[in-house]
Every structure is written in structure tokens, then in C-alpha cells.
């Protein structure tokens, strides 16, 4: 079969002519997919790798104050709960929990204060001699930050504890005056 005179023009391929799934990655130029071709909600967390990502931020503020003269850890009252979205996530714990030691008679005595951070019942950070105070009152912020790897997707609660690390009758003090203290948790996605 042939044509005399004009011949039919070739038909332009349409999407219907191309089988689903038939175009391989190799056929796409590196610049073929522009940002405009990506829908706003098309990129999931799983596809975004190779750079740090904040998955969620949780913060809890309390005005609890507490004191103890014992050497057994007690809660400061500061805590926050987070549920990681992935077991490979890390949790950056940012507590603001002023701790101090009270030596009320300026007698030249000393007090030593210890602190720790728990994830549920697991110790993730401990400083058994955080503060050594001589005479009067001394206060300082507790640990500034801790990076934890909980390896879970279940809800976990971080909380601060403190106690005297040396024996004595005067108090270790948390958040004297009941001002606001805050714990912020950031989920850092893998």
C-alpha cells in the first residue's frame, strides 16, 4: 500500500499511547522534573533524606518548686512527653530547670547537688556532682541539652530529678520561687 501525492502526517504521541510504567528513570534528563512538577504535598518524610529534619516539637512549662535534703533522687516536677514518628529518630531534650543548694547559716558549710534526666525509667544523663556550693545559696541551670536515641515509636516521658549528692541537713532546691521552667523536646528525623 502506498500513497500518491500527499501522504498522511505522522500522529503525535499522546499519553494514551504510552504504557503505564514504561518510561524508565534513564530516559529522564537530570533536569526533566522541575520543582513546579512536584505537588506541594507529594514529598513524604521518607523521600527527604540526607539533611536534618525537625519532625515535631513538644514543650511543657511548669512552676513547680521542690527541695530535698536526701540523697535519693526526687522529681523536680519538670517533664514532657513525646511520641516519635520513627524508631530511628533522635530526641533533643532542652530542659530549663534551675537547681541550687541552700546553706542557710553562711557557716562555711558545703552542699553538693546531683541531677539526672530520665526517659521513663531509664537514665539518659546523670551528673552526680552537678553543683558544689559553699555558704549561702547557689543556683544554676541544670543540663542545657541532651541528645537521646530512644529507638521507639511509643510515647516516652522525659523528666528531671535531683538530690543532694553528699549527706547533710540543708536542702537541694529545684526552681526556687516557683518561676516558670520549661522542657522542650525536638524529634530529629533520620
Amino acid at each position: 500500500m502506498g500513497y500518491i501525492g500527499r501522504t498522511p502526517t505522522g500522529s503525535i504521541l499522546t499519553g494514551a499511547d504510552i504504557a503505564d510504567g514504561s518510561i524508565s528513570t534513564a530516559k529522564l534528563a537530570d533536569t526533566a522534573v522541575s520543582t513546579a512538577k512536584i505537588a506541594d504535598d507529594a514529598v513524604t518524610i521518607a523521600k527527604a533524606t540526607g539533611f536534618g529534619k525537625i519532625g515535631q516539637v513538644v514543650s511543657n512549662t511548669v512552676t513547680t518548686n521542690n527541695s530535698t535534703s536526701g540523697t535519693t533522687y526526687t522529681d523536680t516536677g519538670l517533664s514532657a512527653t513525646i511520641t516519635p514518628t520513627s524508631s530511628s529518630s533522635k530526641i533533643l531534650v532542652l530542659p530549663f530547670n534551675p537547681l541550687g543548694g541552700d546553706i542557710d547559716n553562711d557557716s562555711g558549710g558545703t552542699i553538693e547537688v546531683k541531677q539526672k534526666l530520665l526517659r521513663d525509667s531509664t537514665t539518659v544523663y546523670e551528673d552526680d556532682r552537678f553543683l558544689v556550693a559553699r555558704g549561702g545559696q547557689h543556683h544554676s541551670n541544670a543540663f542545657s541539652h541532651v541528645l537521646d536515641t530512644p529507638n521507639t515509636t511509643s510515647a516516652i516521658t522525659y523528666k528531671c530529678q535531683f538530690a543532694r549528692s553528699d549527706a547533710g541537713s540543708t536542702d537541694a532546691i529545684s526552681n526556687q520561687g516557683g518561676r516558670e521552667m520549661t522542657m522542650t523536646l525536638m524529634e530529629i528525623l533520620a
Partner: protein
Amino acid sequence: MANTFKIKTNDAMPSSSGTPLTLYTVPSSTTSVVLGLLLCNIHTAEVNVSVKIESDTSDTETNQTVFVVKNAPIPVGGTLEVLTGSKVVLQTTDVVKVDCSVSAKIDAALSIMEIT
């Protein structure tokens, strides 16, 4: 046996698009060899043409109606040679019909040799 060369023509066919129009029917006691079929688009736009052979003759198997070409495009000013380099043998009562996507826009020229 006598061999007779003939041409069968029909202008502006078919009379109704979608209803193939008979261009040639093999007479009785005749075997025909189709030597060529030209279909010329006389329309002002591209048309699609179909050619059918209606045959119910048989030796041991009964023939069926078949397309020789179906919905072939012919551009404006173009002519389609349907049987370039091949031949079709027709038997008595076999029919060649032509259809077009637009009524009355094909001029057909059929060259045959009848053997009687």
C-alpha cells in the same frame, strides 16, 4: 478461456458514510484478478477509507468478509494505492466495497482482469 482487462470507476463514493458502497461484483462464470485500486481524496480535509471484500464462495472452506484496508488516512490532495505490488483473486459473486469517513468524498478506480 478469455482474459479481459477492465477498469471500474466510481466517483464521489460512498453515498453514505458508514455504509460501504459496492465498487465491483464479479459476474457469473468469471474469475477476476484485481490489479490495482486507487482511492483519491476529493474532500477539503483528510478522510479515512476502508475497503472490504465480501466473499461467501468456497472450495473446502467458506470465505468470509474481510477488510483489505481499514480506516486508512488519505490527506487532502492524496491518493491511496491499496494494492501496491500484490494481487487479489476474486470469484463469482465476490464484491469489492469502499467506505469513507465522509460521504461522497472518494473517487475510486479499480483495475481488473476478468477470466471467463
